[in-house]
């Protein structure tokens, strides 16, 4: 009973935060790309366009869902929800912090708790396998959407996507296998835990630096494959807007259209989380707490607050006088929370996890603003002729070094 309640609460929390974060990820992407391209980005709805995701969601929900007459109805309607279901399911096994103890509460004489729980929905002992399996199933959403739309552009997009995602699955799995060898476990939590500690007291014990086989190449291959898995530029061939108009989702509108976007962003968050856990030490800080890693978060947030306050006092636009101080107060409040000793053990892992996750997500956005798109044959050649052998070689060398070290 207790377990069910706690899980329910966690589920609601994670789902709520995650869905909001997905919508805001889009805002972040639009804003970052806009600034790269010397534009403003969303700026009309709310201060700095902060309410834009909300407006987008309302717009998409209230739009008429057009059901074209020539589609295969069942698969056409099922595909987007299949895609979004598969994308959301993997977030349930991503740990984003250490264990959490909720102190006991006394209510009417009876004491409840204390409860001890983990900052994730489920610690599956074959977590990595599950994520790989689920992300492979995600292809079905796109392939079925492309096929059932009964549209030539959509069909080409669906075909491209299935070929691409299956091809990139291989280097990705091989790349993942290497850190698994050093960690010796398939559970994401255990993998993250093996990366605790520091060499010489400074260099973190992360998989990309770890003795005996640093997984830096594995990390790069994983990230490249992740770009392909999530259909992002430079691998966004399935929805190459300039060739296939919109690819597999050309016939979709309203919420079923939004579902594909949600799936894409959810997949981005998932692969970045997996990369963070497998290679960047999960929630382990960049340098030890003895050197003041706990101070980074409050300082960073206080810095953001100070910048907001400064610009609020020297407003460039009339509304900045009101909005920016509000942001400043929020930032200062968060900074205070981060510096508050009882909350440090709970918030610090979350901060480090989010920091790494956001860095990787920023990488996705940054590359989208910079690179052109591959051609179909180049994409396949790249996966099979380059990434696959390199990943295989990396796995062999890692295995050899691990065997040597033990």
């Amino acid at each position, binding site marked *: 009973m207790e377990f069910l309640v706690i899980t329910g609460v966690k589920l609601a929390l994670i789902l709520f935060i995650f869905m909001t974060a997905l919508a805001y990820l889009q805002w972040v992407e639009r804003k970052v790309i806009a600034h*790269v391209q010397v534009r403003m980005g969303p700026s009309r709805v709310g201060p700095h366009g902060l309410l834009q995701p909300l407006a987008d969601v309302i717009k998409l929900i209230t739009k008429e869902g057009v059901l074209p007459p020539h589609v295969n109805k069942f698969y056409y309607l099922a595909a987007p929800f299949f895609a979004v279901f598969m994308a959301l399911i993997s977030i349930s096994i991503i740990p984003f912090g250490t264990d959490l103890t909720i102190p006991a509460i006394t209510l009417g004489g009876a004491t409840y708790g204390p409860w001890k729980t983990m900052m994730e929905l489920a610690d599956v002992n074959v977590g990595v396998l599950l994520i790989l399996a689920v992300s492979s199933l995600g292809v079905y959403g796109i392939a079925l959407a492309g096929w059932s739309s009964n549209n030539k552009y959509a069909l080409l997009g669906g075909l491209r996507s299935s070929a691409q995602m299956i091809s990139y699955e291989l280097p990705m799995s091989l790349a993942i296998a290497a850190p698994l060898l050093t960690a010796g476990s398939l559970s994401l939590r255990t993998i993250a835990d093996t990366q605790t500690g520091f060499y010489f007291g400074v260099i973190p014990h992360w998989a990309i630096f770890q003795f005996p086989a640093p997984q830096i190449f594995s990390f790069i291959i994983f990230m490249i494959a992740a770009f392909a898995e999530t259909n992002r530029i430079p691998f966004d061939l399935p929805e190459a807007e300039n060739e296939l108009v919109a690819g597999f989702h050309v016939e979709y509108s309203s919420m079923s259209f939004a579902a594909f976007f949600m799936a894409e962003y959810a997949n981005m968050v998932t692969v970045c989380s997996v990369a963070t856990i497998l290679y960047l030490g999960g929630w382990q800080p960049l340098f030890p707490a003895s050197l003041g890693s706990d101070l980074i978060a409050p300082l960073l947030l206080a810095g953001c607050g100070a910048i907001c306050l400064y610009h609020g006092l020297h407003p460039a636009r009339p509304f900045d006088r009101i909005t920016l101080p509000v942001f400043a107060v929020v930032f200062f409040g968060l900074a205070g929370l981060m510096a508050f000793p009882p909350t440090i053990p709970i918030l610090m892992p979350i901060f480090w996890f989010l920091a790494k996750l956001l860095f990787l997500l920023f990488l996705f956005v940054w590359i989208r603003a910079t690179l052109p798109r591959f*051609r179909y044959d180049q994409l396949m050649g790249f996966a099979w002729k380059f990434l696959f052998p390199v990943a295989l070689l990396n796995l062999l060398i890692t295995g050899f070094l691990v065997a040597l070290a033990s």
Partner: protein
Amino acid sequence: MVLNMGPQHPSTHGVLRLLLELDGETLLKAVPDIGFLHTGIEKEFEVKTYQQGVTLTDRIDYLAPLSNNLVYCLAAEKLLGLEIPEHAQWMRVMLAELTRLNSHLVWLATHAIDIGAMSVFLYCFREREEILRIFEMFSGQRMMTSYFRIGGLALPAPRGWQKKVKDFIDIFPEKIDQYENLLTNNQIWIGRTKGVGYISLEDMLDLGVTGPMLRAAGLKIDARKDSPYSSYEKFDFEVPTRTENDVYARYLLRVEEMRQSTKIIRQALEGMPSGSHQADAPGVVLPDREKMKTQMESLIYHFKIVTEGFRVPEGEVYQAVESPRGEVGCYMVSDGTQKPFRVHWRGPSFGNLQCTGKLIEGTLIADVIAALGSMDFVLGDTDR
């Protein structure tokens, strides 16, 4: 599978329709279909007076309006036997080169976004905006300028134009470097463009291809050098050529052309001769406002030009100008009245589009986009 690409497709740059016969992603046969933007401009010339016809030329190739103004005016001036003052000629050269930059920027922007490089698009449009502001300063219009008129320019150059143009050409070479930074050595860009869209030089000549496409195949043909007009012979510039004749070569060539155009604009700016902006031809050019109010003859000329236009001596003439897309030609026949008997337009885009099939057959869909982009056609110019 037959895929109908266009007329509404983001990468067919207007309303080109392509019927692609596909085997998987490989293209077996391509049938281009044009005519969706036919506006009957050539016929319309015949019901407008000569001076009114200038405004139609803007609409033919809406990305290079001033080059089209220029060829029309030059043709009519040839029939009239007008001598254009040096100042107006240099001004025309400067603005025509700005037009070339304008057109090449739009080309680079759309070509890059077709291949997926989104930021280049906006960087190019940022600089294009500056050029459009200069056009607006000169003529009051951003795109449909109609600034060149038979007999000179529509208006005297505005105050402060030197500073505006100088500011632009001072920063522009850096901006070209910026685009090149993003594309020229980018492995994905090279992979997408190198060796794509090849066609032999003989085929190109047979099909009537001109301009940068031909120069990327190694043939040094440029009307500005071969048959100079509007005092182009007084400017020092190179006509870049390349020999690879693929999409990448066309890209490099056009980027180099932008640098050369900047050079010409700088020379025009620094050596701009003073003088009148219009020829001394009372029956053709509208008289000065002051004179019109004080002199009888001027008033009569003004009345006649405005109400019925001017008569052009009988004859026929062909004038070619190097537009950003290639040789744009105007064949004008006059029967001695105020309206042309016939104006035929040789649109460079029409000639360049002829090689579509040869360029893309046997390639992949993605190459079709790259090859189409490298042709730099404007459908208004193709269909007229």
